[in-house]
Protein backbone atom coordinates (compact mmCIF):
# COMPACT_ATOMS: atom_id res chain seq x y z
CA UNK A 1 0.00 0.00 0.00
CA UNK A 2 1.50 3.35 -0.95
CA UNK A 3 2.26 5.68 1.91
CA UNK A 4 -0.33 8.37 2.47
CA UNK A 5 1.43 11.73 2.61
CA UNK A 6 1.44 13.19 6.11
CA UNK A 7 -0.24 16.32 4.84
CA UNK A 8 -3.39 14.39 3.96
CA UNK A 9 -3.29 12.32 7.13
CA UNK A 10 -3.30 15.54 9.12
CA UNK A 11 -6.33 16.79 7.22
CA UNK A 12 -7.99 13.49 8.01
CA UNK A 13 -7.39 13.92 11.73
CA UNK A 14 -8.97 17.36 11.88
CA UNK A 15 -11.91 16.28 9.73
CA UNK A 16 -12.37 13.21 11.93
CA UNK A 17 -12.45 15.38 15.03
CA UNK A 18 -14.91 17.69 13.28
CA UNK A 19 -17.20 14.78 12.54
CA UNK A 20 -16.87 13.42 16.06
CA UNK A 21 -17.74 16.78 17.59
CA UNK A 22 -20.79 17.14 15.35
CA UNK A 23 -22.09 13.64 15.99
CA UNK A 24 -21.00 12.94 19.56
CA UNK A 25 -20.82 16.41 21.01
CA UNK A 26 -17.90 18.40 22.25
CA UNK A 27 -15.51 17.45 24.99
CA UNK A 28 -16.01 20.75 26.73
CA UNK A 29 -18.94 21.69 28.92
CA UNK A 30 -20.68 25.04 28.94
CA UNK A 31 -19.51 25.99 32.38
CA UNK A 32 -22.08 28.18 34.06
CA UNK A 33 -24.93 26.12 32.63
CA UNK A 34 -23.54 22.68 33.26
CA UNK A 35 -20.90 21.74 35.74
CA UNK A 36 -18.59 18.83 36.11
CA UNK A 37 -18.56 17.22 39.50
CA UNK A 38 -15.11 17.19 40.96
CA UNK A 39 -13.87 13.93 42.46
CA UNK A 40 -14.73 13.23 46.10
CA UNK A 41 -11.18 13.81 47.23
CA UNK A 42 -10.88 17.06 45.38
CA UNK A 43 -9.32 19.76 47.51
CA UNK A 44 -11.69 22.64 46.98
CA UNK A 45 -12.20 24.37 50.27
CA UNK A 46 -11.52 23.55 53.90
CA UNK A 47 -14.54 23.06 56.16
CA UNK A 48 -14.39 23.45 59.93
CA UNK A 49 -16.39 21.36 62.35
CA UNK A 50 -16.20 23.78 65.21
CA UNK A 51 -17.37 21.36 67.89
CA UNK A 52 -14.34 19.18 67.33
CA UNK A 53 -11.77 21.93 67.41
CA UNK A 54 -9.85 22.24 70.62
CA UNK A 55 -7.78 25.14 69.31
CA UNK A 56 -4.67 23.06 69.74
CA UNK A 57 -2.85 25.25 67.17
CA UNK A 58 -1.45 22.21 65.38
CA UNK A 59 -2.87 23.25 62.03
CA UNK A 60 -1.76 26.85 62.39
CA UNK A 61 1.74 25.69 63.23
CA UNK A 62 2.11 23.21 60.44
CA UNK A 63 0.73 25.52 57.79
CA UNK A 64 3.55 26.27 55.34
CA UNK A 65 2.03 29.59 54.38
CA UNK A 66 1.02 30.79 57.81
CA UNK A 67 -2.50 31.41 56.63
CA UNK A 68 -4.46 30.00 59.57
CA UNK A 69 -5.18 32.31 62.48
CA UNK A 70 -6.57 30.86 65.70
CA UNK A 71 -7.48 32.52 68.96
CA UNK A 72 -9.08 30.75 71.85
CA UNK A 73 -9.57 30.79 75.59
CA UNK A 74 -10.10 28.18 78.27
CA UNK A 75 -13.49 27.77 79.86
CA UNK A 76 -15.11 25.49 82.39
CA UNK A 77 -17.86 23.34 81.00
CA UNK A 78 -20.46 21.45 83.02
CA UNK A 79 -19.45 17.88 83.79
CA UNK A 80 -20.40 15.22 81.34
CA UNK A 81 -21.65 12.78 83.99
CA UNK A 82 -23.76 13.88 86.91
CA UNK A 83 -21.59 14.54 89.94
CA UNK A 84 -18.39 14.72 87.94
CA UNK A 85 -15.83 17.45 87.96
CA UNK A 86 -16.39 20.44 85.70
CA UNK A 87 -14.28 20.01 82.60
CA UNK A 88 -11.84 22.52 81.28
CA UNK A 89 -12.45 23.07 77.57
CA UNK A 90 -10.95 25.36 74.97
CA UNK A 91 -13.35 27.75 73.38
CA UNK A 92 -12.59 28.90 69.87
CA UNK A 93 -12.80 32.65 69.46
CA UNK A 94 -11.38 32.96 66.02
CA UNK A 95 -10.54 30.53 63.28
CA UNK A 96 -9.65 32.21 60.03
CA UNK A 97 -8.20 30.74 56.89
CA UNK A 98 -6.84 33.22 54.39
CA UNK A 99 -7.56 31.62 51.05
CA UNK A 100 -5.61 34.32 49.33
CA UNK A 101 -2.52 32.75 50.89
CA UNK A 102 -3.58 29.14 51.17
CA UNK A 103 -1.79 26.84 48.76
CA UNK A 104 -4.22 23.95 49.20
CA UNK A 105 -1.57 21.52 50.38
CA UNK A 106 -3.89 19.86 52.88
CA UNK A 107 -1.33 19.61 55.66
CA UNK A 108 -3.71 21.21 58.20
CA UNK A 109 -6.42 18.66 57.42
CA UNK A 110 -3.88 15.87 57.80
CA UNK A 111 -2.42 16.97 61.08
CA UNK A 112 -5.70 17.76 62.81
CA UNK A 113 -5.89 15.14 65.55
CA UNK A 114 -9.56 15.72 66.37
CA UNK A 115 -11.21 15.55 62.95
CA UNK A 116 -12.19 19.17 62.96
CA UNK A 117 -11.01 20.05 59.45
CA UNK A 118 -12.29 18.51 56.25
CA UNK A 119 -11.82 18.98 52.56
CA UNK A 120 -14.85 19.87 50.51
CA UNK A 121 -14.80 19.74 46.71
CA UNK A 122 -16.73 23.02 46.55
CA UNK A 123 -14.80 25.46 44.38
CA UNK A 124 -17.04 28.39 43.57
CA UNK A 125 -16.08 30.91 46.19
CA UNK A 126 -14.10 33.46 44.29
CA UNK A 127 -14.49 37.03 45.51
CA UNK A 128 -14.04 40.38 43.80
CA UNK A 129 -12.07 41.66 46.76
CA UNK A 130 -9.03 39.89 48.10
CA UNK A 131 -10.00 40.77 51.65
CA UNK A 132 -13.10 38.62 51.32
CA UNK A 133 -10.95 35.59 50.75
CA UNK A 134 -10.40 35.44 54.50
CA UNK A 135 -13.00 32.93 55.68
CA UNK A 136 -13.94 33.12 59.31
CA UNK A 137 -15.16 30.23 61.42
CA UNK A 138 -18.82 30.82 60.54
CA UNK A 139 -18.13 30.63 56.86
CA UNK A 140 -15.81 27.69 57.30
CA UNK A 141 -18.52 25.99 59.30
CA UNK A 142 -21.01 26.46 56.47
CA UNK A 143 -18.79 24.46 54.16
CA UNK A 144 -19.38 21.41 56.39
CA UNK A 145 -22.61 20.71 54.50
CA UNK A 146 -20.69 20.13 51.31
CA UNK A 147 -18.18 17.66 52.76
CA UNK A 148 -18.70 14.26 51.13
CA UNK A 149 -18.14 10.85 52.66
CA UNK A 150 -14.66 9.50 52.08
CA UNK A 151 -14.61 7.24 49.00
CA UNK A 152 -14.38 3.48 49.10
CA UNK A 153 -10.85 2.27 48.62
CA UNK A 154 -9.52 0.24 45.76
CA UNK A 155 -9.12 -3.53 46.10
CA UNK A 156 -6.08 -4.58 48.04
CA UNK A 157 -6.05 -1.49 50.21
CA UNK A 158 -5.16 -1.89 53.84
CA UNK A 159 -8.20 -0.37 55.56
CA UNK A 160 -6.84 -0.23 59.07
CA UNK A 161 -3.70 1.53 58.07
CA UNK A 162 -5.61 4.77 57.77
CA UNK A 163 -6.07 7.37 60.42
Amino acid at each position, binding site marked *: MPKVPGLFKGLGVTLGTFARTVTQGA*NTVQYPHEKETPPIRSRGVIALHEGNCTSCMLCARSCPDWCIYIEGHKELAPPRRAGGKPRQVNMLDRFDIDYALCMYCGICVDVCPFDALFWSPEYEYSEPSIADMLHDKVKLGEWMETVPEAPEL*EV*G*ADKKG*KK
Partner: protein
Amino acid sequence: MTLLGDRQQLSYIASQAADARVNLELETEGMTLNIGPQHPATHGTLRIIARLDGEQVVWVDPSCGYMHRGYEKLTEVRTYPQVTALVNRIDWLGSFANEVPFILAAEKLMGIEAPLRAQHIRTILFELSRIANVSLFLGDLGVQLGAITPVFMAFRDREYVLNLIEGATGGRFHPNFDRIGGLKDDLPAGWIDETRTVMKKLRRFCDEIEDLLFGNEIFQSRTRGIGVIPRDIALQYGMSGANLRASGVDWDLRRDQSLPMAWDKVDWKVWTHPDGDSFARCWVRLQEVRESTRIVEQLVDTIPAGPVMTKVPRIIKVPEGEAWVCTENPLGEMGYYVVSQGDLGPFRVKIRSASFNNMSITPWLLKGVYVPDIVTILASLYFILGDIDR
Protein backbone atom coordinates in the same frame (compact mmCIF):
# COMPACT_ATOMS: atom_id res chain seq x y z
CA MET B 1 33.30 28.55 24.61
CA THR B 2 35.20 25.32 24.30
CA LEU B 3 36.89 23.65 21.39
CA LEU B 4 33.72 21.82 20.55
CA GLY B 5 31.81 25.04 20.37
CA ASP B 6 34.27 26.40 17.86
CA ARG B 7 34.04 23.26 15.82
CA GLN B 8 30.31 23.61 15.49
CA GLN B 9 30.65 27.24 14.63
CA LEU B 10 33.12 26.42 11.89
CA SER B 11 30.80 23.91 10.33
CA TYR B 12 28.02 26.43 10.58
CA ILE B 13 30.11 29.06 8.86
CA ALA B 14 31.02 26.63 6.11
CA SER B 15 27.44 25.69 5.51
CA GLN B 16 26.26 29.26 5.46
CA ALA B 17 29.16 30.68 3.47
CA ALA B 18 26.93 31.98 0.72
CA ASP B 19 24.77 33.88 3.14
CA ALA B 20 27.80 35.33 4.80
CA ARG B 21 29.13 36.64 1.52
CA VAL B 22 25.81 38.28 0.75
CA ASN B 23 25.80 39.88 4.14
CA LEU B 24 29.31 41.19 3.64
CA GLU B 25 28.39 42.72 0.34
CA LEU B 26 25.26 44.33 1.65
CA GLU B 27 26.82 45.42 4.95
CA THR B 28 23.61 44.66 6.78
CA GLU B 29 23.49 46.20 10.16
CA GLY B 30 22.50 44.16 13.21
CA MET B 31 19.34 44.52 15.21
CA THR B 32 18.72 43.55 18.80
CA LEU B 33 15.46 41.74 19.30
CA ASN B 34 14.12 41.34 22.76
CA ILE B 35 12.08 38.18 22.97
CA GLY B 36 10.20 38.00 26.21
CA PRO B 37 9.69 38.05 29.12
CA GLN B 38 6.15 38.37 27.83
CA HIS B 39 6.23 36.35 24.68
CA PRO B 40 4.24 33.31 23.66
CA ALA B 41 7.29 31.30 22.66
CA THR B 42 8.84 31.48 26.10
CA HIS B 43 5.82 29.89 27.77
CA GLY B 44 6.42 31.68 30.97
CA THR B 45 8.66 34.57 31.65
CA LEU B 46 11.93 33.81 29.98
CA ARG B 47 13.64 36.66 28.24
CA ILE B 48 15.91 36.12 25.31
CA ILE B 49 17.96 38.99 24.01
CA ALA B 50 18.91 38.16 20.47
CA ARG B 51 21.27 40.02 18.21
CA LEU B 52 20.04 39.57 14.69
CA ASP B 53 21.60 39.90 11.31
CA GLY B 54 18.60 40.00 9.05
CA GLU B 55 16.61 37.14 10.44
CA GLN B 56 19.68 35.24 11.54
CA VAL B 57 20.76 35.14 15.14
CA VAL B 58 24.28 36.30 15.83
CA TRP B 59 24.24 35.74 19.55
CA VAL B 60 21.63 35.29 22.23
CA ASP B 61 21.57 35.92 25.92
CA PRO B 62 18.80 34.10 27.74
CA SER B 63 17.95 35.93 30.89
CA CYS B 64 15.92 34.09 33.48
CA GLY B 65 14.90 34.89 37.00
CA TYR B 66 11.61 36.60 36.32
CA MET B 67 9.98 33.80 38.22
CA HIS B 68 12.71 33.06 40.73
CA ARG B 69 10.98 32.06 43.92
CA GLY B 70 14.00 31.02 45.93
CA TYR B 71 12.93 27.51 46.77
CA GLU B 72 16.35 26.59 48.07
CA LYS B 73 16.02 29.32 50.65
CA LEU B 74 12.38 28.56 51.39
CA THR B 75 13.11 24.92 52.12
CA GLU B 76 15.44 25.96 54.91
CA VAL B 77 12.59 27.43 56.95
CA ARG B 78 10.16 24.60 56.39
CA THR B 79 9.65 21.17 57.84
CA TYR B 80 9.89 18.10 55.67
CA PRO B 81 6.11 17.74 55.05
CA GLN B 82 5.93 21.41 54.22
CA VAL B 83 8.76 21.12 51.74
CA THR B 84 6.80 18.42 49.90
CA ALA B 85 3.94 20.83 49.44
CA LEU B 86 6.40 23.38 48.13
CA VAL B 87 8.48 21.40 45.68
CA ASN B 88 5.62 20.18 43.55
CA ARG B 89 5.40 23.74 42.30
CA ILE B 90 8.77 23.56 40.61
CA ASP B 91 7.67 21.82 37.45
CA TRP B 92 4.00 22.58 37.70
CA LEU B 93 2.93 20.33 34.89
CA GLY B 94 4.44 17.16 36.25
CA SER B 95 4.07 18.03 39.87
CA PHE B 96 3.81 14.63 41.49
CA ALA B 97 7.11 13.67 39.92
CA ASN B 98 8.74 16.56 41.78
CA GLU B 99 7.74 15.21 45.14
CA VAL B 100 9.12 11.75 44.62
CA PRO B 101 12.88 12.40 44.60
CA PHE B 102 12.64 14.63 47.64
CA ILE B 103 10.64 12.06 49.57
CA LEU B 104 13.03 9.34 48.48
CA ALA B 105 15.97 11.41 49.68
CA ALA B 106 14.34 11.95 53.05
CA GLU B 107 13.48 8.27 53.29
CA LYS B 108 17.04 7.40 52.41
CA LEU B 109 18.30 9.58 55.23
CA MET B 110 15.83 8.04 57.67
CA GLY B 111 16.66 4.55 56.47
CA ILE B 112 13.09 3.59 55.70
CA GLU B 113 11.36 2.43 52.60
CA ALA B 114 7.77 2.78 51.54
CA PRO B 115 5.66 -0.38 51.41
CA LEU B 116 5.48 -2.18 48.10
CA ARG B 117 1.96 -1.01 47.38
CA ALA B 118 2.98 2.59 47.94
CA GLN B 119 5.95 2.16 45.62
CA HIS B 120 3.67 0.86 42.92
CA ILE B 121 1.15 3.66 43.28
CA ARG B 122 3.96 6.20 43.39
CA THR B 123 5.31 4.89 40.14
CA ILE B 124 1.87 4.97 38.54
CA LEU B 125 1.29 8.56 39.60
CA PHE B 126 4.81 9.46 38.54
CA GLU B 127 4.17 8.14 35.07
CA LEU B 128 0.76 9.78 34.96
CA SER B 129 2.33 13.12 35.68
CA ARG B 130 4.84 12.42 32.94
CA ILE B 131 1.98 11.78 30.56
CA ALA B 132 0.17 14.92 31.67
CA ASN B 133 3.31 16.94 31.23
CA VAL B 134 4.59 15.59 27.95
CA SER B 135 1.19 15.39 26.28
CA LEU B 136 0.87 19.10 26.81
CA PHE B 137 4.31 19.47 25.27
CA LEU B 138 3.14 17.62 22.19
CA GLY B 139 0.25 20.01 21.79
CA ASP B 140 2.27 23.08 22.58
CA LEU B 141 4.81 22.05 20.01
CA GLY B 142 2.13 22.44 17.38
CA VAL B 143 1.24 25.91 18.55
CA GLN B 144 4.83 27.03 18.54
CA LEU B 145 5.15 25.85 14.97
CA GLY B 146 1.88 27.42 13.92
CA ALA B 147 -0.54 24.51 14.03
CA ILE B 148 -3.37 25.51 16.31
CA THR B 149 -5.29 22.27 16.61
CA PRO B 150 -2.88 19.92 18.42
CA VAL B 151 -2.86 21.97 21.58
CA PHE B 152 -6.58 21.56 22.01
CA MET B 153 -6.26 17.84 21.54
CA ALA B 154 -3.53 17.85 24.14
CA PHE B 155 -5.66 19.79 26.59
CA ARG B 156 -8.58 17.51 25.89
CA ASP B 157 -6.73 14.30 26.61
CA ARG B 158 -4.54 15.65 29.36
CA GLU B 159 -7.76 16.43 31.17
CA TYR B 160 -8.45 12.71 31.56
CA VAL B 161 -5.07 12.23 33.17
CA LEU B 162 -5.53 15.21 35.44
CA ASN B 163 -8.91 13.84 36.46
CA LEU B 164 -7.19 10.60 37.41
CA ILE B 165 -4.57 12.41 39.43
CA GLU B 166 -7.22 14.52 41.10
CA GLY B 167 -9.38 11.49 41.82
CA ALA B 168 -6.55 9.78 43.61
CA THR B 169 -4.78 12.67 45.26
CA GLY B 170 -7.31 15.49 45.50
CA GLY B 171 -5.14 17.96 43.66
CA ARG B 172 -5.08 18.42 39.92
CA PHE B 173 -1.83 20.26 39.70
CA HIS B 174 -0.34 20.05 43.14
CA PRO B 175 -1.11 16.64 44.54
CA ASN B 176 1.02 16.76 47.71
CA PHE B 177 0.18 13.10 48.04
CA ASP B 178 3.58 11.71 48.77
CA ARG B 179 4.54 11.30 52.38
CA ILE B 180 7.77 10.24 53.99
CA GLY B 181 7.21 6.52 54.43
CA GLY B 182 4.49 6.06 51.86
CA LEU B 183 1.45 7.81 50.56
CA LYS B 184 -1.23 9.90 52.15
CA ASP B 185 -4.02 7.57 51.21
CA ASP B 186 -4.89 4.56 49.13
CA LEU B 187 -6.54 4.76 45.75
CA PRO B 188 -10.30 5.26 45.60
CA ALA B 189 -12.43 2.40 44.31
CA GLY B 190 -12.87 2.21 40.56
CA TRP B 191 -9.71 4.18 39.89
CA ILE B 192 -7.83 1.33 38.27
CA ASP B 193 -10.55 0.59 35.73
CA GLU B 194 -10.74 4.22 34.82
CA THR B 195 -6.99 4.34 34.40
CA ARG B 196 -7.11 1.53 31.89
CA THR B 197 -9.64 3.33 29.69
CA VAL B 198 -7.76 6.61 29.96
CA MET B 199 -4.51 4.97 28.89
CA LYS B 200 -6.25 3.74 25.75
CA LYS B 201 -7.44 7.27 25.04
CA LEU B 202 -3.94 8.59 25.52
CA ARG B 203 -2.52 6.13 23.05
CA ARG B 204 -5.10 7.24 20.55
CA PHE B 205 -4.05 10.80 21.25
CA CYS B 206 -0.47 9.84 20.47
CA ASP B 207 -1.58 8.34 17.17
CA GLU B 208 -3.53 11.46 16.34
CA ILE B 209 -0.60 13.70 17.13
CA GLU B 210 1.66 11.52 15.08
CA ASP B 211 -0.67 11.77 12.10
CA LEU B 212 -1.41 15.42 12.54
CA LEU B 213 2.02 16.71 13.39
CA PHE B 214 4.90 14.27 13.25
CA GLY B 215 3.97 12.84 9.89
CA ASN B 216 3.39 16.26 8.43
CA GLU B 217 6.04 17.16 5.89
CA ILE B 218 5.94 20.80 6.88
CA PHE B 219 6.56 19.90 10.49
CA GLN B 220 9.45 17.69 9.52
CA SER B 221 11.00 20.35 7.36
CA ARG B 222 10.74 22.76 10.26
CA THR B 223 12.33 20.47 12.82
CA ARG B 224 14.71 18.12 11.07
CA GLY B 225 18.29 19.30 11.24
CA ILE B 226 17.35 22.28 13.39
CA GLY B 227 19.18 22.73 16.66
CA VAL B 228 21.44 19.71 16.49
CA ILE B 229 23.08 18.87 19.79
CA PRO B 230 25.94 16.39 19.51
CA ARG B 231 26.32 13.74 22.16
CA ASP B 232 29.40 15.06 23.94
CA ILE B 233 28.04 18.62 24.06
CA ALA B 234 24.81 17.37 25.55
CA LEU B 235 26.71 15.57 28.28
CA GLN B 236 28.93 18.56 29.01
CA TYR B 237 25.97 20.80 29.50
CA GLY B 238 24.24 18.27 31.68
CA MET B 239 21.26 17.94 29.39
CA SER B 240 18.94 15.24 30.53
CA GLY B 241 15.78 13.41 29.76
CA ALA B 242 14.52 13.21 26.22
CA ASN B 243 16.95 15.94 25.15
CA LEU B 244 19.86 13.70 26.03
CA ARG B 245 18.33 10.53 24.65
CA ALA B 246 17.59 12.30 21.39
CA SER B 247 21.33 12.87 21.07
CA GLY B 248 21.89 9.16 21.15
CA VAL B 249 22.79 8.68 24.80
CA ASP B 250 21.05 5.59 26.05
CA TRP B 251 20.62 6.68 29.61
CA ASP B 252 17.42 6.62 31.57
CA LEU B 253 17.52 7.02 35.33
CA ARG B 254 14.41 4.93 35.68
CA ARG B 255 16.27 1.96 34.31
CA ASP B 256 19.86 2.68 35.21
CA GLN B 257 19.68 3.21 38.93
CA SER B 258 17.99 1.23 41.64
CA LEU B 259 15.37 3.17 43.51
CA PRO B 260 12.54 1.87 45.65
CA MET B 261 10.13 2.35 42.77
CA ALA B 262 8.40 -0.15 40.53
CA TRP B 263 9.97 0.55 37.14
CA ASP B 264 12.09 -2.58 37.29
CA LYS B 265 8.99 -4.72 37.66
CA VAL B 266 7.53 -3.96 34.27
CA ASP B 267 8.56 -4.37 30.69
CA TRP B 268 9.33 -1.14 28.88
CA LYS B 269 11.85 0.35 26.55
CA VAL B 270 14.10 3.38 26.60
CA TRP B 271 13.80 5.24 23.31
CA THR B 272 16.75 6.99 21.81
CA HIS B 273 17.30 8.79 18.55
CA PRO B 274 20.66 9.27 16.88
CA ASP B 275 19.99 12.65 15.24
CA GLY B 276 20.00 15.06 18.15
CA ASP B 277 17.87 17.60 16.30
CA SER B 278 14.55 19.11 17.25
CA PHE B 279 12.60 16.40 15.53
CA ALA B 280 14.47 13.73 17.45
CA ARG B 281 13.69 15.40 20.76
CA CYS B 282 10.01 15.64 19.96
CA TRP B 283 9.87 12.13 18.61
CA VAL B 284 11.54 10.65 21.67
CA ARG B 285 9.00 12.41 23.87
CA LEU B 286 6.12 11.07 21.81
CA GLN B 287 7.45 7.55 22.22
CA GLU B 288 7.94 8.12 25.92
CA VAL B 289 4.29 9.00 26.38
CA ARG B 290 3.37 5.75 24.69
CA GLU B 291 5.86 3.89 26.83
CA SER B 292 4.46 5.52 29.96
CA THR B 293 0.95 4.39 29.11
CA ARG B 294 2.31 0.88 28.80
CA ILE B 295 4.10 1.16 32.15
CA VAL B 296 0.93 2.38 33.84
CA GLU B 297 -1.19 -0.34 32.28
CA GLN B 298 1.18 -3.03 33.45
CA LEU B 299 1.51 -1.55 36.91
CA VAL B 300 -2.19 -1.18 37.63
CA ASP B 301 -2.58 -4.88 36.94
CA THR B 302 0.07 -5.84 39.46
CA ILE B 303 -0.50 -3.55 42.42
CA PRO B 304 0.22 -5.70 45.46
CA ALA B 305 -2.18 -5.63 48.40
CA GLY B 306 -1.08 -4.13 51.68
CA PRO B 307 -0.64 -0.85 53.47
CA VAL B 308 0.48 2.31 51.74
CA MET B 309 2.22 3.79 54.75
CA THR B 310 5.03 2.41 56.78
CA LYS B 311 5.36 3.26 60.44
CA VAL B 312 6.82 6.69 60.86
CA PRO B 313 6.68 9.06 63.80
CA ARG B 314 4.05 11.73 63.68
CA ILE B 315 6.64 14.43 64.00
CA ILE B 316 9.30 13.66 61.48
CA LYS B 317 12.88 14.36 62.37
CA VAL B 318 15.41 13.26 59.85
CA PRO B 319 18.75 12.01 61.16
CA GLU B 320 21.92 13.85 60.33
CA GLY B 321 23.40 13.12 56.96
CA GLU B 322 23.41 13.95 53.30
CA ALA B 323 21.60 12.26 50.49
CA TRP B 324 21.32 12.72 46.76
CA VAL B 325 18.38 11.26 44.91
CA CYS B 326 17.50 11.96 41.33
CA THR B 327 14.76 10.60 39.15
CA GLU B 328 13.91 10.74 35.49
CA ASN B 329 11.27 13.43 35.58
CA PRO B 330 9.17 14.47 32.60
CA LEU B 331 11.63 17.25 31.82
CA GLY B 332 14.74 15.30 32.58
CA GLU B 333 16.86 14.53 35.57
CA MET B 334 15.54 16.12 38.72
CA GLY B 335 17.49 15.65 41.88
CA TYR B 336 17.58 16.85 45.44
CA TYR B 337 20.72 17.05 47.46
CA VAL B 338 19.33 17.08 50.98
CA VAL B 339 21.55 18.00 53.90
CA SER B 340 20.00 17.23 57.25
CA GLN B 341 21.32 18.18 60.64
CA GLY B 342 18.78 16.19 62.59
CA ASP B 343 16.18 18.92 62.69
CA LEU B 344 12.52 19.07 61.71
CA GLY B 345 13.45 20.67 58.44
CA PRO B 346 16.31 20.22 56.02
CA PHE B 347 19.48 22.22 56.58
CA ARG B 348 20.09 22.78 52.91
CA VAL B 349 18.39 21.46 49.81
CA LYS B 350 20.08 21.81 46.48
CA ILE B 351 17.44 21.43 43.82
CA ARG B 352 18.86 20.21 40.58
CA SER B 353 16.15 20.87 38.07
CA ALA B 354 16.28 19.59 34.54
CA SER B 355 15.29 22.71 32.67
CA PHE B 356 18.06 24.83 34.15
CA ASN B 357 20.70 22.60 32.62
CA ASN B 358 18.71 22.08 29.45
CA MET B 359 18.39 25.79 28.90
CA SER B 360 22.00 26.59 29.67
CA ILE B 361 22.88 25.26 26.24
CA THR B 362 20.79 27.87 24.43
CA PRO B 363 23.49 30.56 24.04
CA TRP B 364 25.52 27.99 22.18
CA LEU B 365 22.67 26.32 20.36
CA LEU B 366 20.84 29.36 19.07
CA LYS B 367 23.84 30.89 17.37
CA GLY B 368 23.28 31.12 13.64
CA VAL B 369 19.68 29.97 13.48
CA TYR B 370 16.77 31.93 12.05
CA VAL B 371 14.25 33.70 14.22
CA PRO B 372 11.53 31.11 13.56
CA ASP B 373 13.98 28.41 14.57
CA ILE B 374 14.45 30.02 17.97
CA VAL B 375 10.86 29.10 18.59
CA THR B 376 11.31 25.60 17.25
CA ILE B 377 14.39 24.96 19.33
CA LEU B 378 12.96 26.41 22.51
CA ALA B 379 9.83 24.34 22.05
CA SER B 380 11.77 21.19 21.39
CA LEU B 381 14.09 21.68 24.35
CA TYR B 382 10.90 21.87 26.40
CA PHE B 383 11.41 23.85 29.53
CA ILE B 384 9.04 24.89 32.26
CA LEU B 385 9.86 28.28 33.68
CA GLY B 386 9.32 27.12 37.22
CA ASP B 387 11.86 24.45 36.58
CA ILE B 388 14.48 26.92 35.36
CA ASP B 389 13.93 29.58 37.96
CA ARG B 390 13.00 27.40 40.93
